[in-house]
């Protein structure tokens, strides 16, 4: 490998390290961690497990509700590989948009949402449910600025069972140590 390429790789690796730290809730970069009220304290919703073969990862789902400001709760930062499901909406396999949230990383370690941006149309997402396994296929993946979160696309009624995977992503605001966007994966039951 040539020296210039090595240098580039080192630079990229350094940038990635910065990015992952920045989306971690700030435990190691001096930022304030997420307020406790933003992190769900609910337990696992029994019977549901999300598996993404392409990412070689699997998680049970904890229940996510709303914060006092009506923003959606997120899974605990203490367990970055824990995904959660918004319980004021349909569950995976039911008609409607089931919303699954995961951190892209936390506490310096990769989160369940780290690879969401790599999911492309046709990729499989499997969910075990109390009524049996349900297979979803990704229809599209988008990264939207947080200020322009596509609420209608994410939460509006659907004609069949659908899935939304949400994590942070997009452009990093270095000064704020924060991602400016959200990665949203749309999937439909197949």
């Amino acid at each position, binding site marked *: 490998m040539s020296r210039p390429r090595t240098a580039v790789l080192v630079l990229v690796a350094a940038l990635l390290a910065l990015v992952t730290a920045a989306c971690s809730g700030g435990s190691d970069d001096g930022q*304030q961690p997420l307020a406790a009220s933003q992190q769900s304290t609910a337990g696992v*919703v029994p019977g549901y497990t999300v598996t993404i073969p392409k990412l070689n990862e699997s998680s049970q789902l904890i229940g996510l509700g709303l914060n006092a400001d009506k923003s959606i709760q997120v899974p605990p930062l203490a367990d970055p590989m824990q995904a959660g499901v918004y319980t004021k909406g349909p569950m995976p396999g039911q008609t409607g*948009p089931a919303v699954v949230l995961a951190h892209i990383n936390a506490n310096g370690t990769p989160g369940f949402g780290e690879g969401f941006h790599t999911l492309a149309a046709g990729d499989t997402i499997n969910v075990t449910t*109390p009524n049996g396994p349900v297979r979803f296929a990704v229809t599209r993946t988008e990264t939207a600025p947080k200020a322009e979160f596509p609420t209608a696309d994410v939460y509006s009624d659907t004609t069949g069972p659908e899935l939304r995977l949400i994590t942070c992503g997009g452009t990093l605001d270095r000064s704020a140590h924060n991602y400016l966007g959200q990665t949203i994966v749309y999937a439909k039951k197949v």
Partner: protein
Amino acid sequence: MAPNSVPANRRVVPDNDAPAPQRAGRPAGDRDCADFATQQQAQQYFESIGGSSTNNADRLDENHNGVACESLADDGDDQNAEATTTGDDGSTAKTSGDQVTEVPEGSAQTGGA
């Protein structure tokens, strides 16, 4: 996960064999979400009578996800949270339909502070 903890100053849901409050026009023991102070209490009762995602016991789980009475604050430490403003919250977000019973505002803090 951690077991539900009920603060000492809150009403504790009686066990299933305890007499349930009676209301006119409803079968004995049939409760609704208004009978519970917290989601945890509703969940405890719901599961005690066999409720699950496939058994909407006492119709406490209208969306059949195994979680009872989501209209009650479910984080256990924010009992003042309003959960009944579907469709009239004046937010700029417009959604259609009611599959999602309460649409969150804005983005999710899945990273960053």
